[in-house]
């Protein structure tokens, strides 16, 4: 029988330093590996441990896979010490995906914070793959300082040119520096005046991913702006271990994040105590 605990041998092809604490790893799995935006994988550092991460690359490119990872703990520190040619293992993909088919003909608001942009980048590639399906895409992103912005070249320049008339970008930093000419303030301040760009807020879909405190205040702000709880999509960060609904670590109320998530609408979660902790 198929062993769901068996990782696929995967080579690190390239390591890209995004910020001082964040790196993107370009991975090549031994076997064909497909995923959809929003799903997560279990990444094994040989002999060290395993953790859940969301691919940040385009689901339409099957030969390679990218994950963008901040150095915060034991496993991520080991990973940050790895280099091109090293081997890791992956299992998955697990969990649900962003329901793009339900978002057709809707205005989309993406709100990312810090390294939480990783799954949203994968989502962005998926949305722009069929860009004519969406009348408007607004891309909001907040980082601590200009130095902490991930995928700098893409979001500050390349994408802005490539999707000029289709996507508007609102990039903000909590604290600027002398070279920074853009917005300053937490990501919720970048949502001010969003109703000038998004015509039908009550129909619009918003997709949020970032640190818990950012997700909390962004959700409150979105509700304030008129977004419906069922149209606010949140990617929940939990410590999934098995990824297949058995180990119990990612339990969130009656849900298991690996099985029922990681993508949830706020409507599903709002009655669960302490969802933001």
């Amino acid at each position, binding site marked *: 029988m198929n062993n769901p*605990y068996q990782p696929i041998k995967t080579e690190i092809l390239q390591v890209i330093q995004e910020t001082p604490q964040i790196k993107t790893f370009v991975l090549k799995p031994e076997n064909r590996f497909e995923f959809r935006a929003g799903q997560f994988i279990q990444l094994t*550092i040989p002999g060290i*441990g395993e953790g859940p991460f969301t691919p940040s690359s385009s689901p339409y490119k099957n030969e390679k896979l990218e994950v963008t990872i901040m150095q915060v703990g*034991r496993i991520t520190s080991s990973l940050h010490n790895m280099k091109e040619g090293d081997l890791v293992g992956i299992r998955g993909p697990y969990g649900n995906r962003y329901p793009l088919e339900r978002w057709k003909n809707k205005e989309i608001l993406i709100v990312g914070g810090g390294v939480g942009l990783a799954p949203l980048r994968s989502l962005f590639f998926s949305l722009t793959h069929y860009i004519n399906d969406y009348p408007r895409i607004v891309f909001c992103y907040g980082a601590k300082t200009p130095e902490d912005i991930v995928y700098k070249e893409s979001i500050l320049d390349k994408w802005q040119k490539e999707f000029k008339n289709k996507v508007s970008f609102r990039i903000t930093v909590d604290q600027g520096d002398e070279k920074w000419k853009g917005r300053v303030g937490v990501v919720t301040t970048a949502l001010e005046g969003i109703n000038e760009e998004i015509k039908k807020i009550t129909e619009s879909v918003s997709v949020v991913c970032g640190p818990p405190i950012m997700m909390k205040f962004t959700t409150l702000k979105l509700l304030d702006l008129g977004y419906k709880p069922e149209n606010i999509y949140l990617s929940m960060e939990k410590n999934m*271990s*098995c990824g297949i609904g058995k180990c*119990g670590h990612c*339990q969130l109320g009656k849900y298991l994040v*690996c*099985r029922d998530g990681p993508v949830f609408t706020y409507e599903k979660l709002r009655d669960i105590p302490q969802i933001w902790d």
Partner: protein
Amino acid sequence: MKEFFLSKDSYLKFVENLSCEFSLYAPVQKGDFLFYDKVNKENIDKLFVDLRRTIHPIKSFFIPPQRRVSEYFISSSEKREEKKKVILGVKNCDLNALKILDNVYFGEEFGREYKDPYYMEARKETILISSDCMDPDENCFCTLVQSKPFPEEGFDLNLSNIEEGFIIQVGSEKGEELIEAFRDLFSSVNKDMSKKREKNREKIFKLLEKINKKFKTSSSYRELVRDSYDSSVWKKYSESCVECGGCNQICPTCRCFLLSDKKRGEKYEKYYLWDSCLLAGFARVAGGANPRPYLFQRFANRLFCKFFFFPENINLDACTGCGRCISVCPGKIDMRKVLRDLAIEKRVTVSLEK
């Protein structure tokens, strides 16, 4: 359901035969408690098959505390052929717990297409011969969770002790095959025997009602736990919890685990290890955020899991009333009292008897 009579002499022959053909496990007494042990020539006449549940649940036969679940980059093909197992003297509380584990490890509701091949293999290769509980202890409370001290399903064979021998019920094809293999040992059951069994069962049921009279609540535990997140009861009782995780380890339905990796020679291995939701790091994510940083939250969450999470998902309570968590707790926490106090707080009728 087919049933046969097994005389005392035939019973001994039956057990002896089982111990020759299978890896047979049965309850034996060590100190004050019953433990499962492999049956051999030395202990075969000292088995306590029909007394009460063992101190440990039977989950370790299916999900051991530690198990290698994969090896990667290099794989060896060492495979151990094991004799089929027979577990004798399983009580209804432990059979009911297998319903929960079955759902988690290969049920549709948990992880859908992902089934645990190790658990399934162990289930397939194990024959369960249960027995009616004849001597519950003061912590047993199966009747408070709408269960009974004797099994009605989930076994391959079930033994009911009546003075002159046992009534043996056939609950599955595996059980049927066993009966066929030792057909000469069994005879038919008469009405008197059935009556004796019913009388015994009624007696034990009443005894359990008596043991638990002071804990009985008029609402079910499901109703009590639902929406009780802000109750002061969690704080009050968790004060004497020492976070040992013993209740998790000893619970027949607690099945949470952690995957861990290690290097062995040139290859790497992934292990499955039991984990405890009472421990502070259980739900903590990288970077330190923790959805349940306070002990009372974890304490409450364990009972939410039993009486809210599982019922919402598969319409079963994940508590079988075995009472082991009460026996094991160094803080002397009795969950019957926790739930009774929850009922008092919610102004639900409780028994007035002291």
